[in-house]
């Protein structure tokens, strides 16, 4: 089975680690379980989801899902760069990461801001897929303007009482837990007075989950309604009323994930293979595919830089998440459109191998990449105002 080349000067340990991972996947991950975009909330079937859930748990047990976590929580204490290398391979091999909200968004925040009890209670379960997490941020009237959110969580003794509604929540139909951003100070406006709460979706009365059918035909997102739902105060993450910054950090972690660029490399390699198998490849097609490879590799180069910086200094440049988000979201759209163009009317019947994805489904899913995790317009403004210092 092929693997992803990094073009980097890896240490001997890193090279050995990746070899080991690829041998591991050759042995344990059959190609028929290869999935679509790395952390999709859509699944061909319940059986397929269950298989991958179990395989993700196994990956965690065998030490492949959280190499950068401290050893006490099941990690190997390696660097963010090491984790990126591993995740790139997993992405390239189309191993679906079921619990991305838990692993890559909540966990870094818990490691930084969580109490000892919170870490003990959740980190291992996140990795082992015992708690599948979703992220409750958007609301019907609060999309791009997230700070206008209205869901309240009012302190009442040792609970917060939650009322309101969240929407466009991926994974909610499968998740047991939600990271909820809600207004704990009812007098507050904008980004003040918000807090992050961990909500046990299955065992909290007053929580209703309604599936939303997307243009792909599948249930991609849900809307949740909270009616006097009581959340214990010990589920508050970080300081009360100061959840906005934590939520932004959480989104930044989502954005700098290497997974997307590596998956796009796989997509473009699969597309090259499909095109070669069909016909002689003319130069117009070569130029288009070569440009796509270049864009993917540029995005990968950038994520390597960010991971190196993070490993060496513990931080990354303030505009880095927005830059990678913009690059990857454009790639998502352009790559699938190129696939539609090159495979033509066959795009719906073409399937790479016998896997659980095809280019047409990725094409239908692609508009999400321009919007999810903040629209590209929002990220342009973040870079323009916060980094380049231009007026709004």
């Amino acid at each position, binding site marked *: 089975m092929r693997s992803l080349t990094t073009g980097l000067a890896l240490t001997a340990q890193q090279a050995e680690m990746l070899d080991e991972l690829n041998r591991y996947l050759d042995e344990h991950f059959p190609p028929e379980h290869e999935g679509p975009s790395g952390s999709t909330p859509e699944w061909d079937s319940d059986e397929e989801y269950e298989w991958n859930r179990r395989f993700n748990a196994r990956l965690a047990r065998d030490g492949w899902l959280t190499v950068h976590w401290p050893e006490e929580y099941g990690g190997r204490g390696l660097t963010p760069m090491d984790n990126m290398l591993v995740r790139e391979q997993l992405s390239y091999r189309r191993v679906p990461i079921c619990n991305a909200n838990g692993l890559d968004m909540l966990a870094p925040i818990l490691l930084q801001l969580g109490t000892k009890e919170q870490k003990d209670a959740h980190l291992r379960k996140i990795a082992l897929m015992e708690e599948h997490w979703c992220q409750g941020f958007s609301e019907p009237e609060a999309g791009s303007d997230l700070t206008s959110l209205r869901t309240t969580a009012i302190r009442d003794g040792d609970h917060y009482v939650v009322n309101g509604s969240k929407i466009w929540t991926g994974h909610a139909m499968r998740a047991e837990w939600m990271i909820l951003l809600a207004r704990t100070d009812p007098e507050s406006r904008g980004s003040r007075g918000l807090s992050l709460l961990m909500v046990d979706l299955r065992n909290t009365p007053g929580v209703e989950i309604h599936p939303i059918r997307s243009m792909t035909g599948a249930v991609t997102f849900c809307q949740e309604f909270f009616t006097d739902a009581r959340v214990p105060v010990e589920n508050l993450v970080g300081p009360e009323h100061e959840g906005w910054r934590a939520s932004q950090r959480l989104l930044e972690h989502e954005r700098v994930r290497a997974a997307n660029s590596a998956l796009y490399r796989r997509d473009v390699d699969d597309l090259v293979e499909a095109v070669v198998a069909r016909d002689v490849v003319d130069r117009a097609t070569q130029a288009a595919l070569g440009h796509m490879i270049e864009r993917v590799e540029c995005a990968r180069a950038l994520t390597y830089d960010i991971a190196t910086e993070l490993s060496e200094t513990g931080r990354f440049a303030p505009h880095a998440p927005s830059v990678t988000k913009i690059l990857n979201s454009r790639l998502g759209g352009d790559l699938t459109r190129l696939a539609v*163009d090159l495979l033509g009317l066959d795009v719906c019947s073409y399937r790479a191998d016998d896997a659980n994805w095809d280019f047409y489904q990725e094409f*239908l899913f692609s508009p999400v990449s321009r919007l999810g995790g903040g629209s590209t317009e929002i990220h342009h403004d973040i870079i323009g105002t916060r980094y380049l210092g231009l007026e709004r």
Partner: protein
Amino acid sequence: MPHIALGGEDRTDEQRDLRMELRRLLTRLWSDDHARELADGDRTTGAKLAAVLEHDIALGALLVPEELGGHGGGCVEAAVAAEELGAASAPSRLLGDAMSAHLLATSGDAELHRRLRRVVEDGVPAAVVWPAQDATWDLHQIHPVEITGAGASGRFRYVAEALDAALLLVPARRGAEFGLLLLDLSREGSGVELHPAKGADVLRPLGGLTVAGPTGEWVGLAEPQRVFTETVALGAIVLAAEMIGAARSCIERMATYAGQREQFGRTIGSFQALRHQIVDALVAWEAARAMTYRAAAGFAAMTRGTARIDDVEPMARMAKAAASDALGEASETCIHVYGAIGFTWENPVHLAFKRWAASAQIFGSPTEQRVRVCQHAIINAGGRAGGALRVAG
């Protein structure tokens, strides 16, 4: 919802009337709910609409010459109808009807003229079996059905509007002679196999077709290559106009929504970056729309004998390519402007997005069209410079 248009597309009262009549009829009969029902697999409302289109406007007779019992409309009228049907996300047989009418009428063959008259009189759904993946529009570069002593044999992977047709007009070859194989599906049961093919566009299902055995009726043609190239060029213009309609609807929808939806205490259309994206979609659309009607007018002039297919073919290709890009941009931008709502099944924009994935490819992708537009210009330049044509595949 405002109707956008630069103006000037309808040059005659008849064209204006046709557009307005279709608009009225579609507003009454075909809502977003109907389109969604169709996407959910319910074909009954679509059949009802088809019946009304046939009964009230006789769309099938639009391009049939008056002396053969039709409306005597031309390519511009077809474009007007296609734009309005496309804007409404309404299914229709316009593509098949228009191509069949042109093929039969322009053949110059008296038997085929009689056949066309019967098609109109009986309201027979007809379709031209041209391979949807072909970009050459050239009878000599596709694989027509081969007719030998043993009968006809041929295979087409994707054909548009063949699935529910009763009469198929198939490019065919008998020895060195090219012509037409007529397949009357209501009469013959054997030798023809039609099966649905997977496709992106629920509004226009594609079918695969196999012909084998002693079947159909052979008609030789005097100028087979010209007749088929013209027919496919007409199909391309109809597809372009349909995409222009679909794109128009996307632009109207997103302009309306951007003027209503508020974020950060302002309508989202007041954000310059979003507003300019909508404008960019509009600008691309205006240009593609103008090109589409210019091509349609060129085709109509050709039908009247005042233009040549050599000049009309590149115009049809440019219209098709430009309209494809315009719909791609308009539908994608529309989804984005709607935010997550645009991504839902409930919102009908995805029908336009999916229609793009199919219509942009039928009879050749935009890149394929552009390659051939350039080759046409190179032939002209080579002719002028006296140089030989040097083009790499």
